[in-house]
């Protein structure tokens, strides 16, 4: 099946800093999503981005499908950005029915 690798595994930043999280995947995808899991365990959808670039406030994401990677940018970090960020992908060969394969996540801590 498809492999999804995220880096870095852990990241500690001061409030106001910018960060880039990376997701590499091993196959062509028809679905790629970024999630934020907050300290209460809730999974929050950030982006559905199998290709291209999207922005939502201080967050933006870019997926370069031909090179099989995606980047999540967080600007002007706030303490509420702390948590685990997951990248998840479904392979194109699955025809749309496949579930998502998750990476192991990036644990982000924003210090005040």
């Amino acid at each position, binding site marked *: *099946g498809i492999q*999804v690798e995220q880096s870095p595994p852990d990241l500690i930043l001061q409030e106001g800093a910018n960060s880039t999280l990376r997701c590499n995947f091993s196959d062509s995808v*028809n*679905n790629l*999503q970024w*999630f934020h899991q907050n300290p209460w*365990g*809730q*999974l929050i*959808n950030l982006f*559905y981005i*199998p290709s291209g670039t999207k922005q939502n406030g201080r967050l933006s994401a870019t997926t370069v499908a031909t090179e099989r990677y995606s980047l999540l940018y967080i600007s002007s970090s706030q303490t509420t950005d702390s948590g685990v960020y*997951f990248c*998840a992908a*479904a392979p194109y060969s699955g025809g*749309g*029915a*496949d*579930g*998502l*394969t*998750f*990476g*192991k*996540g990036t644990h982000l801590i924003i210090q005040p």
Partner: protein
Amino acid sequence: NAGVTQTPKFRVLKTGQSMTLLCAQDMNHEYMYWYRQDPGMGLRLIHYSVGEGTTAKGEVPDGYNVSRLKKQNFLLGLESAAPSQTSVYFCASSTGLAPFGEQYFGPGTRLTVT
């Protein structure tokens, strides 16, 4: 519009007991999924369904059964719980339509098997 809801939120079982987790969605989605999340890991797919009356195995299906009798509901059953099934269980749904649809997740059920 509640999105994806899960019942119960927490449960403690003894080894060998059975239980059913309920997932409901009000978005008229065709596809539904059950995942589990173990400490320090991402989610892994247990079973999924592409429509009412259909189910299929995911990555880690052993020890679980599912049913999709109604489009809006997807049930996950544990017939004889084992400590290895201690986990957080998430349900998700999507439209399944091209370009294959964003998955939306429920709040999770935290299950402990002693």
